[in-house]
């Protein structure tokens, strides 16, 4: 049992528990908070996978950005509707069956594939990322910019209440 293994099990437990809580809890607000926990746990998984940079991104963008937006949205709709939003679930059993089926299908393939040994050498992640983003992925990055603009354009268009 290495540290990594112990950490993995711990993080996995937290991640799964909080994920389940996200989809099961009645209170939407709580669900968002659980989501934050799950996202942070995922960030920890990234740490275990030796990607601290991504851990940062995950915290900033997800736990910071996404959760904040969602909370805003909930507050906004709550304010409009004037009552707390609780949520119920529909057809839990059906959903569970389908999800389980998807999981089994994936795992089936996992079992088929042999597991590669982890590579011990560690490339310089940050520098490599920097080079990659201005090198082969430059166009992709620019397009991502366009994408974000377009999505925001759409979001603003919807969100503004004037017309």
């Amino acid at each position, binding site marked *: 049992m290495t540290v990594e293994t112990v950490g993995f099990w711990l993080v996995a437990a937290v991640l799964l528990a909080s994920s389940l809580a996200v989809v099961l809890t009645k209170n939407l607000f709580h669900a968002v908070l659980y989501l934050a926990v799950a*996202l942070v746990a995922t960030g920890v998984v*990234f740490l275990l996978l030796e990607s601290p940079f991504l851990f940062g991104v995950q915290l900033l963008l997800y736990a910071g950005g996404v959760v904040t937006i969602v909370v805003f949205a*909930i507050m906004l709709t709550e304010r409009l509707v004037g009552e707390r939003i609780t949520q119920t679930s*529909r057809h*839990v059993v059906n959903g569970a069956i389908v999800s389980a089926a998807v999981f089994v299908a994936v795992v089936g393939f996992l079992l088929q594939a042999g597991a590669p040994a982890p590579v011990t050498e560690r490339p310089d992640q940050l520098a490599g*990322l920097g080079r990659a983003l201005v090198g082969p992925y430059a166009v992709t990055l620019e397009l*991502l910019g366009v994408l974000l603009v377009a999505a925001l354009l759409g979001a603003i268009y*919807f969100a503004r209440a004037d017309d």
Partner: protein
Amino acid sequence: MSLHGYLTLGALVFAIGLFGVVTRRNAVGMLLGIELMLNAVNINLVAFSRFHADLGGIVFSLFTIAITVAEVALGLAIVIVIFRVRKTIEADRLDLLRG
């Protein structure tokens, strides 16, 4: 920990996310499910990247995160506009269009 451990973890999170999408009545709740699914993608990507010592996966997951954010923004905007027009965000009450 082996690659398969991470992948299985990702698959579990993915399945839970899917479960959330198909069971949540509330549109925001569905959105949260989608977040989980995309999160699973990132776990996969980073795990592969790590085990193959290839940066592509990290780059991919960066893009995924960014796209997810955009998606959430747009999705919530839609939820808000729906709420304005229909006074509900219970997705299963939105069935004017059918058949």
